């Protein structure tokens, strides 16, 4: 009806829903990554079999296409909105005191998002691209078959202190992005009703802290166990 599809509110809803969907993706990804905590050959075998499953299973393939689409939608719709909001204030203020009225992360979602995009490109190149198109080492299983050894690629990548630090730093950016993003998305879709305001606030903080913290603990663990 009327201008609904081109309205700022509808675009915000798209940004919110794609963002919330990506949070569920993060949870799934995190659960898979937890297998990297399993030590020795057992962990290597389990992780590599999991990686094989994730790259061949048709349901996962379909889900991954939805995830890539959500990422692209989230990037383009927010980019569009950022450009629109820049246009809404052609002349800025000489003095601004943003921290007096709002949180830093809420005002810098675009910067945080750009850091995450940069991270995503490097992250996909290191693991996803290598797994699909790069030269991979192989693990030979006891039954004689060989599978791509993503476990070795991952553990050796996190022996580099700079790469490990970069990963942890980007998880910090993710945390700040989620801190505002989750609560903001709930508000935009209209679910942040006053009687549950506190619940949503703490849920957003819990999500924003725990997901990146557990993600970051894996490379830190791998770095220090292989040092």
């Amino acid at each position, binding site marked *: *009806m009327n*201008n609904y599809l081109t309205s*700022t509110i509808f675009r915000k809803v798209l940004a919110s829903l794609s963002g919330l969907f990506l949070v569920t993706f993060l949870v799934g990804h995190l659960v898979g990554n937890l297998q990297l905590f399993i030590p020795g050959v057992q962990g290597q075998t389990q992780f590599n079999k999991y990686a094989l499953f994730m790259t061949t299973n048709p349901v996962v393939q379909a889900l991954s296409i939805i995830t890539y689409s959500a990422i692209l939608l989230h990037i383009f719709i927010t980019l569009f909105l950022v450009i629109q909001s820049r246009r*809404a204030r052609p002349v800025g203020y000489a*003095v601004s005191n943003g921290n007096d009225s709002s949180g830093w992360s809420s005002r810098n979602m675009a910067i945080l998002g750009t850091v995450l995009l940069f991270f995503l490109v490097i992250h996909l190149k290191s693991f996803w691209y290598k797994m699909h198109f790069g030269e991979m080492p192989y693990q030979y299983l006891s039954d004689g078959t060989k599978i791509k050894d993503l476990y070795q690629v991952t553990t050796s990548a996190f022996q580099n202190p700079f790469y490990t630090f970069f990963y942890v730093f980007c998880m910090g950016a993710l945390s700040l992005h989620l801190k*505002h993003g989750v609560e903001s998305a709930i508000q935009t879709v209209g679910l942040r009703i006053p009687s549950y305001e506190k619940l949503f606030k703490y849920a957003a903080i819990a999500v924003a802290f725990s997901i990146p913290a557990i993600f970051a603990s894996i490379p830190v663990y791998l770095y220090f166990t292989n040092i």
Partner: protein
Amino acid sequence: MGDLQLTLKVWRQRSSSDKGKFETYDVSGLNSHMSFLEMMDVLNEQLVGKDIEPIAFDHDCREGICGMCSMVINGRAHGPLKGTTTCQLHMRHFKNEDTITIEPWRAKAFPVVKDLVVDRSSFDRIIQSGGYVSVNTGSAPDGNAIPIPKEVAEEAFDAAACIGCGACVATCKNASASLFVSAKVSQLALLPQGQPERKERVNKMVSKMDEEGFGHCTNTGACQAECPKEISIEYIRKMNLDYNLSNLKG
């Protein structure tokens, strides 16, 4: 009381087409009981004495209820005090020899007319697009003729406290008018009289808001922190929900 002396950096702009720049003025002979606008009056008097054109700024009731006064004072819409318009901000909140930077509201939809005066008629056009009940209301109805629960009446009244000053737009990093529009939508959407035109109203007012070139809402909450009437972003949530539901249901 004591004498107060200030250095003011004020935005001067001859007309909407002029580029504009900051001018620095020293103003003396002030006291801490003056309101910020009275301080501006003293400055203007001193400027006239020096044959400098006085600074144009918006003001009317000077009681904090008309929504005419504006000014971004040291980076804060209506200055540093919470829940206060510029006219109700008193000089006791500033220290002797402070430097204060005064700027107009900055938004594409609020073009500068002159100095600190901006054109806020985009707000009027949003109201004209649907912020009313289009029936002849006749004379005042009897009290309690239409029963409305106390909490609902309070909530509608809190939205109706919006004076349309534009501080929400001025303070929002995206120059979004969401707080204003949501208050004006909600003050009617919450009451029985507003129901027949509820869908149509929210659609028209949101469309007009977008058309006027305001930015989108990123839920930073800066508007509710700076709003002189302390209107809550809860109304923005209500407006979003109303807008989405009215379009999705068709």
